[in-house]
């Protein structure tokens, strides 16, 4: 058997536990299982490090079983494992036992955004002093470049409150699901990943800025979606959290 055929049979037996062991192997199934266990344990540990709150919410046993299924169906495509696991939240949501926790996919998006922000490109946050000299009439023409680590997650559930109590409290504080949704900014201006609650409609606002809209255009897009969008409060929080890498006045 040539090396390619052998590795194909070996790889199939690793991922499909019903498949026959590769031909020509010297060693019992228990020895072959060392490799199966190494793969399952190491990739489950990777997912657990990226989704600690999901793991706490669903419990260890369910998390491990779900991770095992996910690894079998969506094995990593690259040895750079930083990219592995982005689809885990959506996968988890589709599983029957997770249906009673409707906020899981948004918590998963929040945890993934924190992971992505941790490893995102570094950039010095924008210098805000430029704002002091701006002609107020030209404010709507400003272009605001988001920090490379910045992401925003809107949810109909209080996801940051759920995330915080499950991250920091020894005994989880009950969160009323009908308390209203939360829109959460994730950004890492320097070394620490920061999360902050943003005014409603900020997700539309930031999506428009990210797509290249000016400040005025983005404010209109957010107001069209969320009538009560508070531009001043949103900008103040984004500046306070150092969520921009550049502030570019209009050319004229």
């Amino acid at each position, binding site marked *: 058997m040539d090396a390619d055929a052998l*590795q194909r049979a070996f790889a199939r037996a690793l991922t499909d536990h019903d498949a026959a062991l590769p031909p020509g192997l010297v060693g019992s199934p228990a020895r072959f299982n060392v490799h199966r266990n190494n793969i399952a344990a190491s990739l489950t540990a990777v997912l657990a490090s990226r989704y600690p709150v999901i793991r706490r919410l669903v419990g260890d046993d369910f998390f491990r079983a779900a991770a095992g299924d996910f690894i079998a169906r969506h094995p990593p495509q690259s040895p750079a494992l930083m990219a592995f696991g982005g689809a885990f939240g959506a996968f988890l949501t589709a599983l029957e036992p997770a249906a009673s926790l409707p906020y899981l996919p948004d918590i998963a998006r929040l945890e993934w955004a924190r992971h992505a922000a941790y490893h*995102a490109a570094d950039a010095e946050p924008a210098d805000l002093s430029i704002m002091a000299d701006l002609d107020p009439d030209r404010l709507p023409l400003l272009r605001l470049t988001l920090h490379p680590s910045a992401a925003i997650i809107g949810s109909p559930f209080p996801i940051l409150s759920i995330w915080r109590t499950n991250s920091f409290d020894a005994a989880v504080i009950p969160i009323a699901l009908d308390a209203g949704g939360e829109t959460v900014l994730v950004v890492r201006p320097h070394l620490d990943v920061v999360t902050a609650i943003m005014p409603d409609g900020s997700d539309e606002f930031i999506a428009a800025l990210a797509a290249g809209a000016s400040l005025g255009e983005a404010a209109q897009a957010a107001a069209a979606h969320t009538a009560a969008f508070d531009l001043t409060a949103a900008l103040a929080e984004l500046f306070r959290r150092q969520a921009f890498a550049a502030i570019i006045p209009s050319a004229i």
Partner: protein
Amino acid sequence: MIATSIPPRAGVGLKLEHYAAIVAERPDIGWFEVHPENYMGAGGPPHHMLSRIRRDYPLSLHGVGLSIGSAGPLDRDHLARIAALVSRYEPGLFSEHLAWSSHETAYLNDLLPLPYTAETLSLVVSHVDEVQEALDARICIENPSTYVRFADDEMSEIDFLASLARRTGCGLLLDVNNVCVSAANHGFDPNTYVDGFPVEHVGEIHLAGHARLPADDPAAPLLVDTHDRAVHAEVWALYERFVKRAGARPTLVEWDNDIPAWSVLFGEAQAAESILDGC
């Protein structure tokens, strides 16, 4: 470009958990090693910490994902990411494993065994040539821990590695813990292996802890290369036996799971260093 070299002293695998202690204590340790795969994000704390450590210590990159033993072609994107880290951090050494871990598009995240045949030797030779060309450096290849072997083996692991070193000019990384694990799993004498290892090619030595599992056959124990505990007495003895013959070589203590306090890991490195001092 590999710009510096690793001193023939003891080092440890760098864990970000130990960063604060290392920066505060500036320990007298020969060097650090990291897995480049853990530094493949664009930025963030891992790069910040590694850059800070690199200012004060020699660094070695120990790849775990290149899949040198793949029957298919090397992952050129992955090789390019490693080359970028080599030019950013100017490590004294790059090493990889005699193993495969990718098949077609799936990455299997384990070091999988190869049969030792003329066919696999020429595959590995061409991949090592390609890596050495891309990095413009001599790399080291590590002997694996194995749990199964193959009926079609045409040569011993040592003959395979010695031929690889001769044909590519690469160095070898002797992992003494892997010798101990494979010897127990396959019933060969680890002293004979270490005595027969081609000492002239050895550029680095690894030490680590392993686990002994309840084996399926009581006559043949199952040892697993876990890197989750202190180096075993048997591994220390094999190491001393090798360096008495070879002389001092850069020696790394690996401890990747159930990571202990910095003082415990540093103590392991000091134990290795005292063996190096005595050889």
